């Protein structure tokens, strides 16, 4: 009984992590700007890798492998925001302009976004 519950939990964690990874990669292909792509990649890094590694932790039980998995998870969760921050800083100082709805050809949705920002 306990093994079945653990198996279902591992399945759910691995599949939701894989879903987040594929969604993040899809967003990185389809979103219009480097900053919005950074947002999609950050979600894939945090939730996708995190859920998959936690699922592997649940599968392996409590031993030295779990410690290594938690170390990998800790390194990923420390280094990914730092790399994203450095990338955003470099992109801003390098002249990449953030994509805005108001400046493009979608004027109607841009005014909606401005109204939402003011209220």
């Amino acid at each position, binding site marked *: 009984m306990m093994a079945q519950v653990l198996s279902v939990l591992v399945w759910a964690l691995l599949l939701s992590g894989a879903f987040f990874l594929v969604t993040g990669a899809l967003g*990185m292909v389809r979103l219009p700007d480097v900053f919005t792509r950074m947002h999609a990649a950050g979600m894939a890094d945090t939730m996708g890798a995190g859920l998959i590694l936690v699922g592997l932790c649940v599968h392996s039980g409590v031993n030295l492998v779990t410690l290594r998995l938690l170390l990998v998870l800790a390194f990923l969760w420390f280094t990914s925001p730092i790399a994203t921050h450095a990338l955003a800083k470099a992109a801003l100082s390098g002249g990449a302009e953030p994509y805005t709805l108001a400046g493009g050809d979608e004027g109607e949705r841009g005014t909606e976004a401005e109204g939402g920002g003011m209220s």
Partner: protein
Amino acid sequence: MFAVTAAALLVAMCLAMCRALLGPTAYDRVLALNNIGTMTVVLIAVLGFLNGRPDFLDLALAYALINFIGTIAVLKYIEYGDLGTSGGPRRRNASRR
């Protein structure tokens, strides 16, 4: 279940590789390569469990650190044009000295 996760990881890596090849600016390519590195770390861990040998986790640990250092080095090279600068606020201050 590890095979399904590995397949999803490979699909996500293919999509990120599309962005790395198509990316209009260098920052898109750096972002895609950083994401591919993160997914490689997870793929190494999943493949270790798939083969029944979780010893590959040490490789994943080392690869995570190498990926981070590589990303930071490439970003510093793009921003300052030089890996040896002390990282001042602007490129002009570094070139005046």
